[in-house]
């Protein structure tokens, strides 16, 4: 087990920068999630740690040891690939045993270790099957077992759940969480799924266009986003972002609607700001009870809650309320925003205003 350090790492293909001068310190036994949309450089970052891509500049350290010039096989890592990367011509047993075999582990030791790894992910019954005779979830388990059969310094997981159906993804996520808790190995996990990031991570690094925009615990990322991008990427439905300007401590939308800002937010007059508020921080009430009266645009019942969409000028705002709410389209309602959870951002830079 070891820490992982990136020092001013850049990966460029000609003029295109996949990863742009990033530094990152991942602590020993930490579960770090790299989160971002496709093309943000998260997978490239992971592949550089694995040794499958060579950084254009900068240093990569595993423990105290610089590994830039080492082949993947010498880095003592294990990786789970998005498409699993199983060996189709080998049985499940052969797949799990391969990392041991190729590293010259005595054959007497291999059997018990393969059985133990298979037991951890409940594959014992399927050891003699070929990968093509397995379901997606089972293949995923084989890939996991192949990673945990050794105790590597670092686990790398590249969107390991993205090929599973929704239900299986949720149950595998819990298994991953349990597994990482028991194994206590430094893990770097790449995903574009913010729920995976929130649930699995010790810390999340939100990436965009080759840069880490914010690095922090899931709670920090969710409750204290540093920019519009981070705020809108995390949370489902996404945070409501309302454009407008500040005058005399009051937020005016471009259409003229007003919202008094609570103390604690910047109060000096300025144009071009974005007010952010999460759907669950907006409560719906009878007209006159809240900050602003509006007309219902759409009502969606998701089962566990009701999403009420209203139009405020040109913007649409979503409020999440309890599942017993009974509003209909065109009803007049009022909205009240929780003053403790309002965010202001600069419109052009996207930076948070504090």
């Amino acid at each position, binding site marked *: 087990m070891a820490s992982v350090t990136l020092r001013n790492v850049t990966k460029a293909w000609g003029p295109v920068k996949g990863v742009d001068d990033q530094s990152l310190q991942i602590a020993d036994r930490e579960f770090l999630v790299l989160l971002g949309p496709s093309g943000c450089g998260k997978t490239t970052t992971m592949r550089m740690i*694995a*040794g*499958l891509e060579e950084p254009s500049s900068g240093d990569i350290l595993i423990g105290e040891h610089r590994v830039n010039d080492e*082949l*993947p*096989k010498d880095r003592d*890592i*294990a*990786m789970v*690939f*998005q*498409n*699993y*990367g*199983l*060996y*189709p*011509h080998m049985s499940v047993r052969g797949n799990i045993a*391969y*990392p041991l075999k*190729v*590293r010259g582990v005595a054959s007497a030791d291999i059997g018990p270790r393969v059985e133990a790894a298979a037991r951890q992910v409940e594959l014992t019954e399927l050891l003699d099957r070929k990968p*093509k005779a397995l379901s997606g979830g089972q293949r995923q388990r084989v*890939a996991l077992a*192949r990673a945990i059969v050794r105790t590597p310094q670092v686990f*790398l997981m590249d969107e390991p759940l993205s090929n599973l159906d929704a239900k299986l993804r949720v149950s595998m996520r819990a298994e991953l969480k349990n597994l990482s808790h028991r194994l206590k190995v430094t893990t770097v996990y790449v995903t574009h799924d913010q729920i995976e990031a929130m649930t699995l991570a010790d810390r999340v690094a939100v990436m965009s266009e080759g840069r880490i925009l914010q690095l922090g615990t899931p709670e920090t990322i969710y409750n204290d986003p540093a920019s519009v991008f981070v705020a809108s990427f995390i949370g489902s439905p996404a945070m409501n972002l309302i454009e407008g300007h500040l005058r005399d401590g009051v937020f005016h939308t471009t259409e003229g609607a007003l919202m008094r800002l609570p103390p604690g937010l910047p109060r000096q007059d300025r144009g071009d700001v974005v007010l952010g508020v999460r759907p669950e921080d907006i409560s719906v009430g009878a007209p006159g009870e809240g900050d602003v009266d509006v007309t219902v645009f759409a009502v969606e019942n998701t089962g566990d809650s009701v999403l009420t969409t209203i139009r405020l000028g040109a913007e649409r705002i979503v409020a999440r309320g309890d599942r017993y709410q009974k509003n209909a389209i065109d009803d007049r309602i009022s909205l009240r925003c929780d003053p403790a959870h309002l965010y202001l951002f600069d419109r052009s830079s996207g930076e948070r205003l504090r």
Partner: protein
Amino acid sequence: MNARTRKRVLAVLQNVAILLFIATMLVPIVWIALAAFKQHVDVYQLKLVFTPTLDNFSRVFAAPYFLGDKLINSTIVATITVLIAIPIATGAAYAFSRFRLRGQTLLLVIILATQFVPAVVIVLPFFLMFRDLGLLDTRTGLVIVNLAIVMPFAVWMIKGFIDGIPIDTEEAALVDGSSRLQVIRNIVLPMAAPGLVTAGIFCFIIAWNEFLFALILTSKNAVTLPIGLALFKAEEGDLWNLMAAAGIIIMVPMFVLALIIRRHFVQGMTMGAVR
């Protein structure tokens, strides 16, 4: 004509077309198969009922034809060609498939372009070269020529099969602790095996049937089966029954290989398609 009758008429026409096609393809082969078991006097009669004889087969192996020698030459030349071509082509195909090389597309096209040159054009330079090198009428010479013929084909074909292997699988093996060579040996070769067998058999067939170069570059010692056929144009006329017997001997291995290849070919073709 309603839709139903039209459908039926079309089906009949389709079957007739297929039968015509099969007949065109098979009649010569049936004729050869029959002639191989006929006496010389029966050859020109289209009799389907005759007393079959194995005489022709024993005669072609005896003096003055010694088809056995040609059979050995053909077998050795084709086998060695395949044994050399497939490993080298696999290496080249792997490099083309997996590494980004400067001028890669151009190189691939050039390799294929060597196939565009008509054999007749280069057979004379080959003859002069081989004469100077003392390779005329040797199996070594024929192996070299056949390699030049089958290599481009093998590289392209095997590259296609290696392209079909997901890169994730190779990268997983690299991370799991394999060197590049171990990846090739433990992962790529087993996964590409159906493709390698298919390419190997195709190369064997090409080398086995190669006629023009063998005709010009051999005279006595290294003569192969297709050239051997010419022996049966004798003073007493074309010995069709012997030629047919020799033809059968040439065809039977191809027939067996075709049966083998059929299974591998389908497997190889769909390998990349299914995860």
